[in-house]
């Protein structure tokens, strides 16, 4: 997808030069996501665009699946994996094939940016609606400036927090 846009985006990521600080921020972000998801328990959880699984491995649920399109990060995520967490190499759009598996929690952390998804917001809403149980929860967490989506569900909570460079928005939806 748009190389320029990806580069722009990566520049933003790289602008956080102090890697310790960035690691701490990622931990904080993960803790916020986990805190915001703890208002109920989940049977099936999917973390879409899970990266190395730093959130996937900590989130609570009976069966947890992390998917990512990068072979490398999935391999890394698979190391030291606990028994109720699985990783597999898939894209968000592969979920069209999911026929019977229904999730109680769908998590997107820094995935729904235009360089990654192009102009396919409505397609994504439909794909997610297809795999999300009634009363299921969607949690999204993105840099607010680059995130234009809104899932067609009730918006339970929206929370803003920031690191030095950007304001992040976390949304919790209920189907």
């Amino acid at each position, binding site marked *: 997808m748009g190389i320029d846009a990806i580069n722009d985006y990566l520049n933003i990521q790289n602008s956080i030069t102090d890697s310790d600080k960035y690691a701490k921020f990622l931990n904080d972000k993960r803790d916020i996501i986990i805190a915001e998801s703890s208002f109920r328990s989940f049977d099936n959880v999917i973390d879409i665009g899970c990266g190395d699984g730093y959130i996937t491995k900590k989130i609570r649920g009976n069966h947890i699946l992390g998917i990512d399109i990068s072979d490398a990060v999935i391999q890394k995520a698979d190391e030291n994996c606990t028994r109720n967490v699985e990783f597999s190499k898939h894209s968000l759009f592969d979920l069209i094939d999911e026929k019977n598996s229904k999730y109680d929690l769908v998590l997107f952390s820094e995935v729904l940016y235009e360089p990654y998804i192009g*102009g396919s917001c409505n397609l994504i809403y439909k794909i997610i609606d297809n795999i999300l149980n009634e009363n299921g929860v969607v949690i999204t967490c993105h840099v607010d400036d680059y995130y234009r989506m809104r899932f067609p569900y009730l918006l339970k909570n929206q929370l*803003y927090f920031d690191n030095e460079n950007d*304001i992040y928005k976390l949304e919790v939806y209920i189907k």
Partner: protein
Amino acid sequence: MILKYEGVYYESNDNCQVTMDQLYKQLLELRTKEIVPFSNYDAFNINHVVLFINITGETDLKAVVFLCNQFNYPFEFIISEKVRSVLVENELENLLKNTQIHVHERFTYNGEYYLVKNDSNFKKKTTAVIIASYNYGSFLIEAIESVLRQTFLPDEILITDDCSEDNTQEIASIYVEKYPDLIKFNRNPTNLGIVQNFNKAVSLTKSDYICFLGADNRFRSDYIERTSEILDCNPRIGIAYTDFALFGPRARIVYDSFNEEWKGSIKYNEFYIINFPEFDTNAIETIKEGKNFIHGSSMYRREAFEEVGGYLQESTVPEDFNLFSRMISQGWLAKKVNQPLLEYRQHSRDQANNKMISYAELAFYKDAYKKSNMLIEDKEKYINWLENTNGEKDKGIQWLENQLLERNEGIEWLKAQLKEKDEGIEWLKTQLKEKDEGIEWLKAQLKEKDEGIKWLEGELENRNNDMK
């Protein structure tokens, strides 16, 4: 009308490449038409539309099939032998099972057809959202964002401010600046009250469908998609209403005050859903009894609004209920979307007026602050540049002044030279005069000498004569 898509992709690099989102939008816009299979197409029926979609090697076929299946339309896919040859065996058959998609190997239609572009628009009816704020500035951003992030965008958004004393105007102005073609702002110089404010706001919009959103509430993101569909599909329906979800500190109390049979599910003690009755003959009786189930944020036709003369002042019941009752008495139908598409905030007035800073507001101001800072940085850079330029100009002026000074000195010198020359001339003139006088004197001397000579010559003659 035959419509042909050259290709549908995740992103569009030229206008012939239609994105998934644009395809979705255009398919929604076509719902007033009769989409028919190519085999049933009647070129003389202006309501008939056939949808051809060309599948290229770069198309995500599975995704396009999935998206098309969201609509109850027949489709004609053009899949060449070449494209088909790279698919896994039976993949196409499995994908198209239980769909209304017909496959053609090539596009053979010889008549006129319309090539759909990424920016093609098939909308017949337009929609206006009016966000009404009276001292609801602290919630306004959430309301506006809920409209801007609709799955099917409105054609105009009007923020109407009934002379608020809070930051409504400030927030609205920033949004108008950011979306000048979509958002308009009206501020009443005095507080007009609901009825006049609402009638004025409607008169400031021009769309076919109208809906109001209180600035303290939010639309679910499929509100416009679902409500406008109802009005699109039946011209006799004047009002599209919905269920709603109460939230906020007083949600529970308000929920408890509703009819038992209207109370819906409670979601995580956060949302209290009210399921209103369907619009049928019983429901019309309910309305006549004065019991309202069509909330004020329902979408209605401008035509119906104008026919009954808009919102009325003298009403003893709420102005929206009064409007909808008159529309229904006039013969307009209503229909409900069975989804809580309105998030209806329940707070006490105190809280609303407390200027409670919501997170959204904080983020909005942080963003505005960041942008202002960037603007200030730019301005500072410009000032620096101006200062530098100024410095250089000053140097230039200095140099010019020096030049001028040197020139002046030159002129002075020339003048002095001139004066000296003049004096020289004077001196020469004096010299000349003296010489002339000398000449005169010499001439006088010469004359005297001549006279002397003459006298001597006379004497000489006299002496000669004497001698003779």
